[in-house]
């Protein structure tokens, strides 16, 4: 079972390496959206510092959503999704593999680059660590929740817009507690409460989202 998981992750990461442009698009989207704000709002350090957590998280949310379309659609189009569903393993296991790969490709680079981007907003160095941790806990959750939406819209024309309508409202708790954690640390408060809730949400997502995604895939491929 674990071996199948590994095979799917390696397959998807290998595919992403063959299409590096796709990976770069997500990352640059995040960098550009986050960089537009300091340019548009003006170089007022106090204002930027106050806005930074929200902006960085919204940019992360949008960037993560941008790559959701590729999660199942390409596999659906060339018939390999059918083959994945016929693998002699529980479908939820296949889904976990796909979600892990999605996070490695689109979430992890974002987590790593976010502290650098945050420097534009004059975030205190102490908050950079919190931002990193919050994103580390939050971005896998974005991939998990997003997979449900992506599975529901597999093969639907114009599914990209639909998936954002489905998924963005579900991203709200991640946004609230993720941005809340960074916000707390910039004002010198303890962020561990927010981080704990993010961690709890992640555990809940890890248990529930793969089953929901598997059920959605079965319905979509009927």
């Amino acid at each position: 079972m674990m071996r199948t998981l590994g095979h799917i992750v390696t397959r998807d990461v290998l595919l992403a390496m063959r299409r590096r442009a796709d990976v770069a698009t997500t990352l640059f989207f995040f960098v550009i959206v986050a960089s537009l704000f300091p340019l548009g709002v003006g170089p007022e350090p106090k204002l930027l510092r106050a806005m930074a957590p929200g902006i960085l998280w919204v940019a992360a949310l949008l960037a993560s959503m941008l790559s959701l379309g590729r999660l199942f659609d390409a596999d659906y189009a060339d018939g390999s999704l059918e083959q994945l569903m016929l693998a002699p393993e529980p479908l939820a296991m296949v889904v976990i593999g796909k979600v892990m790969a999605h996070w490695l490709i689109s979430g992890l680079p974002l987590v790593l680059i976010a502290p650098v981007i945050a420097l534009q907003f004059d975030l205190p160095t102490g908050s950079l660590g919190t931002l990193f941790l919050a994103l580390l806990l939050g971005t896998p959750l974005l991939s998990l929740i997003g997979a449900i939406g992506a599975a529901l819209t597999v093969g639907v024309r114009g599914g990209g817009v639909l998936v954002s309508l489905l998924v963005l409202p579900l991203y709200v708790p991640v946004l609230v507690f993720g941005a809340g954690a960074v916000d707390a640390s910039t004002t010198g408060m303890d962020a561990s409460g927010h981080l704990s809730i993010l961690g709890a949400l992640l555990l809940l997502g890890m248990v529930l989202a793969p089953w929901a995604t598997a059920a959605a895939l079965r319905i979509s491929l009927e």
Partner: protein
Amino acid sequence: MLEIIGLGCVRGERRLFGNVSFTLEPGGLIWIQGGNGSGKTTLLRTLCGLTQAMAGEVRWRGEPIRAWGEDYRRELTYIGHANGLKEELSARENLLVAARLASQPASRVEVDGALQDMGLAGREHLPVKFLSQGQRRRAALARLKLAQPRPLWLLDEPFNALDAHAVAGVRKIMEGHLARGGMIALTSHQDVGVQATDTQTLRLDA
């Protein structure tokens, strides 16, 4: 042994087929015929368990396939209308990945041998996007060479886009499978022409 009992399928509002029954014994082949949109693909997908039947039952070795769960998928190989190949990967990589995901790991030598048998020698390393439609179909069908231990083969239009030479090759692979006691259900618009002791035909739009 695969038993189909009173199978019926509905697509949207339309009834595709109803009351389809047949039994496939080891060494047997069934050729599913019918016009476009008569439900051939849906029937094959129902046999895989990808689509739920509205009525009737599919049984494998006496048990409903639902009861078999994932283990049923260990018994079958399905080659659909779409080839299931990733364009960015080479034919060799595609086969290696497919074999691993099907829990039938194959070595590089075995994979290259299968591709060679399908006439793709020297093209194993080319990304699939550089292959022609016929060559892609050949690469997809090369999976059959690796799937020989699986008793049940479900093939959707296997001869599509193939030239006469490749068709003959695929027929030979199928004959070998039947001789080993395998079972094949396939759809095809052209003559199947496989020499088998037990060949049935099923017309869906009749």
